[in-house]
């Protein structure tokens, strides 16, 4: 099974049926599976904080929702996490493609990529780095279980060592 299919299966197991996202070339490997599967409603947001708002609304109305973005867009979403998901205790799994890692070619991606996990730390958002397929199913399922048990947003940071990164 591919890493992307493992994530899709874990989403279903947790009845996460609404995915709000801003496109990313690496995460596309997951979102194209989501888009082709009638179980899911894939919502294209124009900006990452909007995606978090949509996911929060879905959860409030009883539907589990996750968000997909890249690390540059994480920078656009911080106030939605700090001012909505955390104080309201809304469990939203946030899948982040970490740019600025091994093989990065774009200098403009480096600083935000490097800053993403430290910012998550300061926010108090638990996060796990997924950089290989080793014990992937266990890691993803365990993280999602924790997210809903704690009723907090939680981030899964995926690196090019997992997904191959973006080629020039």
């Amino acid at each position, binding site marked *: 099974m591919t890493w992307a299919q493992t994530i899709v299966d874990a989403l279903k197991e947790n009845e996460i049926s609404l995915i709000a996202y801003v496109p990313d070339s690496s995460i596309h490997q997951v979102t194209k599976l989501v888009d082709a599967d009638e179980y899911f409603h894939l919502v294209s947001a124009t*900006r990452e904080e*909007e995606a978090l708002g949509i996911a929060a609304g879905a959860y409030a109305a009883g539907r589990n929702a996750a968000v997909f973005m890249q690390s540059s867009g994480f920078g656009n979403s911080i106030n939605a996490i700090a001012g909505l998901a955390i104080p309201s205790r809304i469990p939203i799994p946030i899948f982040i493609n970490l740019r600025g890692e091994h093989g990065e070619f774009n200098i403009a991606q480096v600083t935000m990529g490097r800053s993403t996990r430290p910012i998550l730390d300061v926010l108090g958002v638990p996060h796990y780095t997924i950089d290989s397929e080793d014990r992937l199913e266990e890691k993803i399922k365990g993280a999602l279980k924790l997210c809903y048990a704690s009723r907090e947003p939680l981030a899964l940071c995926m690196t090019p060592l997992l997904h191959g990164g973006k080629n020039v």
Partner: protein
Amino acid sequence: MFRYSATKRILSHLDQEPVVSNLGPTSDELWHASDRDRNFYTYGSMGLCSSIALGMALSCDEKVISLDGDGSILMNLGTIATIGREAPSNLIVVVWDNEQWAQTGHQKSHTAFGTDLEMVAKSNGLEKSFTVSDEEELDSVLMQALSEEGPWFIVAKIQDEPYLPVAPVQPEHTLHRFRQTFVTEPDRVG
């Protein structure tokens, strides 16, 4: 038109429909008008009121009402494009438009300089977009919006009025109470 009175009038037409309110006085006034289980007050994340309502509309069958503001939705005009793209038939966005950021010192907003939110919505495919300037007009469009398919986008022009006391609301409680009306099983502990 004054927002608090218009808010009370909107609520008089509602039964169990979810209402999401923009941060600040809009949430306070909704609470004072009627503190319903199906009210989702926001106290941060400025700009996301109608995005939250969109997520709800895609997740339930009832009409969902967003009570947004001009300054707030100007931060997130992209969500109007997403509403147009998703076109949820059960979403009603009301934008209280006082043409200013009133809470921060009455600085004029872009709608005071010609930005026409009704036209923004129309150009994003929300054909049922209207601007209303008194309660009778608001009433008439809202009654239609509650009975006919949307999405609906209603720009309600309002005037200044004194603020009511801040509503004693906790975000965690708001979320839990609201969600419990949709999800019957309790959150499991232990």
